[in-house]
């Protein structure tokens, strides 16, 4: 098993999909000649040609709209939005068109497209280049939202996303692109909607997704040295999300912390808590705690951003609270 960087793992999934299926095409700003702003699409133009791998103008609304139309007409487009903050310009195509087409046309068509986009802070990119907006999409019936936490999952989930008949928002944490992880090239795609127990434990469950899973694992490590046994559940996909798996873990540990990098208020964690405090009511020995970003835009300055981003210490504090 080789070590592969997160960005490369994404690249390999794209490469495989383009190789396997002539209806897969890829486009976005600077994804072709330049190989992508983070190098993720490097080499694909050379391999698959400029019919299938295209640079686009800076026209987010039109390119995502075009992806929807192409998906309704026999292709499987993968479109990149360079920073998740910029989806603000392309919401109509995803929400009013892609998400609803199958339903509102009576099941006549599917919209097999993937919108790839990086979210998250940690690179001092400031308030307009760091947002985690996945909660917007999770609220929209018809969309699926996938957020991998490591290179292997990125590859295997992206392959599943491309194969999926429905429109998918595939969120990559930009601070992870250069992080390495184990990857077995022969591994299968991962079923979308199934969570994964990233670390087994007995005393408390931490549910998370994306890069924050690694923060949860760090916290679990530190807590282990204090004899606190933490189970970490990686949701992998937040729409649909695997409530059975979370409930199963909660039913063992009876204590739950939900962690994500996005702003806590009205974030993805709220839904998980709302659901677990309902179906898991009798299992809960303590209130569920949420750990996420505070209610402010992502600040630029290093000192501010590092206070802003949820870290292992914040998670440990939450675990202490639910164990108190």
């Amino acid at each position, binding site marked *: 098993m080789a070590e592969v960087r997160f960005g490369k793992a994404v690249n390999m999934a794209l490469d495989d999909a383009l190789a396997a299926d002539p209806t897969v095409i890829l486009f976005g700003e600077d994804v072709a000649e330049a190989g992508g702003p983070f190098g993720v699409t490097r080499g694909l133009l050379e391999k698959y040609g400029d019919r299938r791998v295209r640079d686009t103008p800076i026209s987010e609304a039109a390119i995502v709209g075009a992806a929807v139309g192409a998906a309704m007409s026999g292709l499987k487009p993968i479109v990149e939005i360079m920073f998740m903050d910029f989806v603000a310009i392309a919401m109509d195509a995803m929400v009013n068109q892609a998400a609803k087409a199958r339903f509102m046309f*009576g099941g006549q068509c599917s919209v097999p497209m993937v919108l790839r986009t990086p979210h998250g802070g940690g690179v001092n990119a400031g308030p307009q280049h760091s947002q985690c907006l996945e909660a917007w999409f999770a609220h929209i019936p018809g969309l699926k939202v996938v957020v991998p936490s490591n290179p292997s999952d990125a590859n295997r989930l992206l392959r599943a996303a491309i194969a999926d008949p429905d429109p998918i928002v595939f969120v990559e944490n930009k601070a992870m692109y250069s992080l390495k992880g184990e990857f077995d090239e022969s591994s299968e795609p991962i079923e979308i909607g199934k969570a994964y127990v990233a670390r087994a434990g007995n005393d408390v469950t931490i549910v998370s997704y994306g890069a924050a899973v690694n923060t949860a694992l760090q916290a679990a490590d530190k807590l282990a040295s204090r004899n606190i046994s933490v189970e970490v559940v990686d949701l992998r996909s937040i729409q649909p999300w695997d409530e059975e798996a979370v409930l199963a873990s909660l039913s063992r540990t009876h204590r739950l912390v939900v962690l994500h990098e996005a702003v806590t208020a009205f974030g993805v964690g709220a839904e998980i808590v709302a659901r677990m405090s309902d179906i898991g009511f009798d299992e809960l020995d303590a209130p569920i705690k949420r750990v996420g970003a505070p209610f402010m835009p992502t600040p630029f300055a290093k000192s501010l951003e590092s206070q802003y981003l949820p870290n292992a210490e914040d998670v440990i504090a939450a675990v202490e609270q639910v164990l108190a």
Partner: protein
Amino acid sequence: MSPAKSDNSVPKSRLLEFYEQMLLVREAENRLSKLFADGEVPGFIHLSVGQEAVCVGVTSALKREDTLASNHRGHGHALSKGVELNSFFLEIMGKEEGICGGRGGSMHVADMSVGMLGANGIVGAGIPLAVGSALAHQVRENGAIAAAFFGDGALAEGVLHESFNLAALWKLPILFVCENNGWSEFSPTDRQFGANVRELAGVFGIPSDYVDGDDVLDVHDAASDLVTAIRAGEGPRVLECVTHRVRGHFEGDSQKYRAEDEMNSLSNHDPIAKLESVISKRRIPKKEVAAIREKIDAKINAAVEAGRAGNAPDFDRAQADVYTAVRGV
């Protein structure tokens, strides 16, 4: 404007075909108007009465495998692209047997089997969908083209401009059809958009044509010429059709904001009356025309009956269509 071919060069069968198609749209909408007033059609409906020459003239230049993305005023686009009449009425009346299971209604009529990618409730949103569809045709090299229908009001949406640019850069096989009826809801469009669609297209290097949108023969000829160029791989084209919205923005709109003069002059522009006069000049027997009218009437009566006989949609079946039924990964 391309020089209008002499009406005499158009075969009689073609004239009657156009007539029948326009009449179908007209009478279907007249009936919808009535059903709406009677509470048998819920929601909002936007009629294209007076604009029938555009949809019929353009779609008659397209093939079945060509795709079309429409807007909120899409009944004519749907019917002339080939959506079956009964399932059209069933849809707009909100029935399970409707082409979209009664989930979309007038603003979302779609039929993938005839390349109708949907009416659209978001002004301008169909345009990039058509661009994407054209991209699919280009990549798949299937010989098909896409058409985007939009109103003059949509010209102010930025996505139109983005779409022109993208289509031109990628030389996509797409026909942009602007139905310029001078109105954008309750406002004259010249108070909303200071440019002209053909000049705008010109800036992107997209050739265009301009026709009297009341004349189905002119529309058809112009569309055919543009479609030929598009199919030959020459890239996108724009067709501006000047036309007239007879009814209100939606049914129930009393149009008090339109001058009496304008309202009175509308009948001079009636595309169906225009074609009737061509037909009568060609000495086509009145009874052939009457037969067409009867046929259409009968079809529409039947469709309304079918609509009434349809069932209320099933909720669970609707919800099951939010996503595609799961397949293994």
